[in-house]
């Protein structure tokens, strides 16, 4: 595996009062690699968006650190931070909310180019916009003069991807990018992310609650609960042979047309929902290896 471009090293982020802390991230460690997609899956409230926001530096970690190309991100080095800001881009769940309704699509793409590639002439910027739109498989002449509300949900998500690509990023964090889209449109967006990753050697963090789409796009997967990554590794190893009780619970509950409703994959775990939730919310500092590129956090012995 190539060297990591972005690393979270033992990152903890706590919200709430001291007497009632909410661990949105608890000792989270993972690394993103160029040309690879890492999926982060979990139910709502598990801490997925917090991980994204930590990467976007919207919050500072309470403990632990971020490393960019192996170098810890400090507060002081302005140039390194600028470099980081343009290298790490985000795609959000609701493309409508992240686009300005009063501006054309052309404006949305031109702005990041003006900010991050100051040397470009107007003609070069125009060419770059056309290229970006072609890359996300939209017709440039048709789309450029349009306003966000004139586009479909899928087209808007393509625009957010084009905008993220405008600054030649190396890392893309996509937080539930398809969960507001219909199945038929979802596919196109997932394929696009896949192509970007391969062609531009991007490191992709794909955040979702939909395990089937995670399997479709990702090389590796992490399962999160209560701010902790309870199991991680190669997608098929984790999904075919889950070891952590919470992963097994989650996989038992995921809709699967190949199973009759009463044919539960891990009936034992599905019968212990509360117990597994309680135990999974406790710190699980140990790491156990289930196989090649497959790890989980065993419950501490009581």
């Amino acid at each position, binding site marked *: 595996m190539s060297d990591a471009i972005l690393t979270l090293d033992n990152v903890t982020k706590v919200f709430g009062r001291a007497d009632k802390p909410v661990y949105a991230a608890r000792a989270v460690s993972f690394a993103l690699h160029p040309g690879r997609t890492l999926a982060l899956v979990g*139910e*709502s409230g598990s801490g997925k968006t917090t991980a994204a926001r930590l990467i976007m530096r919207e919050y500072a970690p309470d403990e632990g650190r971020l490393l960019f190309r192996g170098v810890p991100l400090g507060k002081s080095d302005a140039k390194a931070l600028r470099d980081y800001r343009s290298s790490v881009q985000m795609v959000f769940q609701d493309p409508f909310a992240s686009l300005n309704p009063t501006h054309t699509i052309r404006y949305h793409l031109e702005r990041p180019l003006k900010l991050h590639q100051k040397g470009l002439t107007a003609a070069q910027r125009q060419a770059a916009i056309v290229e970006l739109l072609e890359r996300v498989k939209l017709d440039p002449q048709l789309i450029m003069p349009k306003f966000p509300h004139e586009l479909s949900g899928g087209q808007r998500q393509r625009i957010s991807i084009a905008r993220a690509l405008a600054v030649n990023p190396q890392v893309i964090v996509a937080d539930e990018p398809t969960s507001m889209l*219909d*199945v*038929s*449109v*979802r*596919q*196109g967006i*997932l*394929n696009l992310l*896949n192509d970007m990753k391969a062609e531009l050697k991007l490191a992709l963090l794909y955040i979702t*609650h939909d*395990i*089937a*789409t995670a*399997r*479709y796009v990702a090389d590796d997967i992490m399962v999160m609960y209560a701010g902790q990554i309870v199991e991680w590794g190669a997608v098929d190893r984790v*999904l*075919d042979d889950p070891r952590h009780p919470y992963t097994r*619970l*989650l996989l*038992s*509950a*995921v*809709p*699967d*047309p*190949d*199973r*009759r*409703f*009463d044919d539960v994959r891990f009936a034992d775990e*599905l019968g212990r*929902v509360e117990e597994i939730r309680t135990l999974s919310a406790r710190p699980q500092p140990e790491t156990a290896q289930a196989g090649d590129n497959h790890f989980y956090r065993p419950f501490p012995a009581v």
Partner: protein
Amino acid sequence: MSDPVLSVRNLNIDYVGAETNFHAVKNVSFDIAPGEFFGLAGESGCGKSTIAFAVSRLHRPPALIRTGSEILVSGRDVLSLNDADLRKFRWREVAMVFQSAMNSLNPVLTIEAQFYDVLRAHGPISRAEAHARATELLKLVDIAPERLDNYPHQCSGGMRQRIVIAICLALNPKLLIMDEPTTALDVVVQREILQRIDVLRKKLGFSVLFITHDLGLMVQVSDRIGIMLEGELVEVNDAQTIYRHPQHPYTQQLWASMPKLHGEQTRREPVL
């Protein structure tokens, strides 16, 4: 097949506009048998909710049901019910849980008061009787009776949704309509709720009209499924046939665009 609980015939519904009408439901016909779990699937905007609201007689202008459309519940013509009949029909014949139902509970009333309201509206009942019935109903959906004293905000989303389902079952309806009842909930909670519904309908014998955009889930829980496309019901079949041998090209395309949880994973190009 015994007489259907629900029989929809040539249902046509328009949304009436100032200039043009939008034909949202086009000549839809289907039946639901007693005790049957019937799924209605299709992408957003295809007309699923419009049908659900019409069947429960909850549709409002600009929705307009064309003459010639027929909706029969246990053989009774739903579309010609007068106000008095309608009051008896609701909750007792058909009850509906919708996506945001968990937010439809009255925030200033306790759970018990909300049960009491529904029970009382359909015949004289003492506080003590209502309390006993509400306790029994909560038990059906796996909720402790202590919750009767709670206000909605004290309960989780999944719990509130189960409470709404319990209220819907208060008057033993013959048909429970669920319009995306678990879409806002996580999969584990969704699974627990649907498992409960499945047990209950087998025990109590009601039928279910279940609406979702999640085809995989629908195949798992339904006996039969109808697939909708732009207002039309393009295929109705038993769940396994819809999954393993879909007949209509649109149904085939829907499956082709869905990533699978296991088995061979090939890149799929969108075909829709």
